[in-house]
């Protein structure tokens, strides 16, 4: 009987090993497929025009071309050039980030730690507006900003961020709910006011959740096209999205599109997001998971 048992064990372990190997293979294949577009982009970015269009393609550029000066020259015609566009985008992205982190945490704080009439109903309404696409409110909002004289400035892109975004409020509220109320209560006994509790207790304890919101906010604003497209017409104020857009649309009229330069520009645009992602991917993933499991 002992012999039978040990043989049974062996085959079960073997089974798991085989399955594990198969799973690894599938996962690696899928992973390779996911990476393929990025590798293609990097490969093209350092070729010259002729080689970019070569069929069959060479994965490793030969000769290797340092295309950055050419890319910058290509962008020079757009007002502030490449560095200027990066700067513009950075200004908008950071201003928006600050606004979203602070307004959303304050609002989440209010929803999670205070009781008042209609609180849950208002929260539900607030969340429900997440289903409304940006394009529904786009036109009246444009007219509103036009009436304020804010067209062709960054204000329409930044100001709304200071009035809370439902998704981030939701994430932060979920997190705040896990912080025990006893902390608030003992602080109040010690004489602390609401703002102090918010800034000295809740916020420091919420760094992971705040990091998540910051990462999402950064990525969303950095990559945004529609809002800048609607509001910014002055080329000097272009964000990198608008620069790439301008190059891409000119490209459709040109017979041969300089994809090698476009790929380099795309790569340069993506790099900050990729870097932040790799550093903070724990937070990204946690944020997605928290939002999906609300059930």
């Amino acid at each position, binding site marked *: 009987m002992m012999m039978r048992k040990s043989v049974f064990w062996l085959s079960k372990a073997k089974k798991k090993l085989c399955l594990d190997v198969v799973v690894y293979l599938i996962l690696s294949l899928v992973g390779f497929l*996911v990476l393929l577009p990025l590798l293609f982009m990097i490969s093209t970015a350092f070729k010259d025009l002729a080689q970019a269009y070569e069929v069959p*393609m060479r994965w490793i550029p030969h000769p290797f071309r340092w295309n950055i000066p050419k890319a910058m020259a290509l962008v020079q015609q757009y007002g502030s050039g490449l560095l200027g566009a990066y700067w513009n985008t950075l200004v908008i992205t950071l201003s928006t980030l600050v606004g979203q982190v602070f307004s959303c945490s304050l609002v989440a704080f209010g929803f999670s730690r205070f009781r*008042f*009439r209609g609180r849950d109903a208002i929260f539900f309404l607030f969340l429900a507006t997440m289903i409304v696409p940006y394009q*529904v409110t786009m036109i009246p909002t444009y007219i509103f900003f036009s009436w304020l004289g804010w067209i062709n400035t960054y204000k329409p892109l930044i100001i709304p961020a200071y*009035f809370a975004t439902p998704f981030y409020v939701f994430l932060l509220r979920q997190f705040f709910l896990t912080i025990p109320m006893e902390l608030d209560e003992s602080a109040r006994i010690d004489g602390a006011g609401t703002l102090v509790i918010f800034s000295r207790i809740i916020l420091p304890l919420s760094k992971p959740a705040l990091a998540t919101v910051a990462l999402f906010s950064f990525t969303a604003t950095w990559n945004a096209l529609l809002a800048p497209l609607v509001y910014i017409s002055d080329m000097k104020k272009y964000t990198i999205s608008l620069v790439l857009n301008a190059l891409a649309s000119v490209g459709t009229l040109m017979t041969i599109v300089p994809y090698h330069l476009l790929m380099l520009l795309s790569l340069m645009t993506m790099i900050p997001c*990729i870097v932040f992602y790799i550093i903070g991917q724990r937070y990204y993933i946690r944020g997605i998971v928290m939002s999906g499991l609300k059930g």
Partner: protein
Amino acid sequence: MVLNQHNKSSSLAKREAVQGILCILPGIIGLLVFMIAPIMVAFFLSFTEWPILESPRWIGIANYVELLRDSLFWTSLKVTLLYTLGALPLGIVVSITLAILLNRSLRGITFFRVLYYLPVIMSGVAVSVLWRWIFNPDAGLINQILGYFHIEGPLWIFSEKWVLPSFILMSVWAMGGMMLIYLAALQGIPQQLYEAAEIDGANIWQKFWRITLPMLTPTIFFNLVMGLIASFQIFTPAWIMTQGGPGTASLFYVLYLYQQAFISLRMGYASSLSWILFLLVVSAALLIFKTRARWVYYEVERSK
């Protein structure tokens, strides 16, 4: 969850209420100014004709009448719906499959999770430009690879037949986010259920259909709603890669809306388009919500 549980004094409760409302005030203002007011204004605007340079003219329901007769309106609806019907089910199947594969105690599983989620954070123009290059019929990635196998690849985004599948392919690449949600949901399924099933002699297939899938239905439901809403907002890829072409084969709804508003400068008509969009999205979400009782299992989730 209340600060003054023991002391029901009304002045303290009132103070708490006031403070709470003050805290959420930015959200309330945002809700009113950037959501509720615009939706109502869009409603009124949809009954006007407003070519921006002049003042709006009231024309009653003429916009809606025109809309119903507008073949481009119907085309854009069709394009958006076709895309959704292609991308959503495929996305759910792929994500769940990957999540099941990833739901093992294997070393290095985190690496794959991080890798699969990477495309999700790369949104916007850069990615769309990249994919336009990938879909290039002459030298793009896909046709180059097909070329290795001596297959002549299609024209992808330059072909009326292949343009929507191209968009769908692009969305599958960015499946990572959905997959992570399913992975987390899978990890929330109690092992006892599977063990009990094994004792009863269930095989892998039965375990999947009778335990895994029902337990995943709340998550599937959530992803359906979010996916539907997202597909009604597809703008950047369409704008960068095809501008609605070839012809009108990829004229996504909001692309058409944008064109009417900011290129044809017909704010009144565009407002009627946006109001229709609003109604469609709300109806779709309500529909899924109302039917969820039929197919969402909550027994385990409630205890969370």
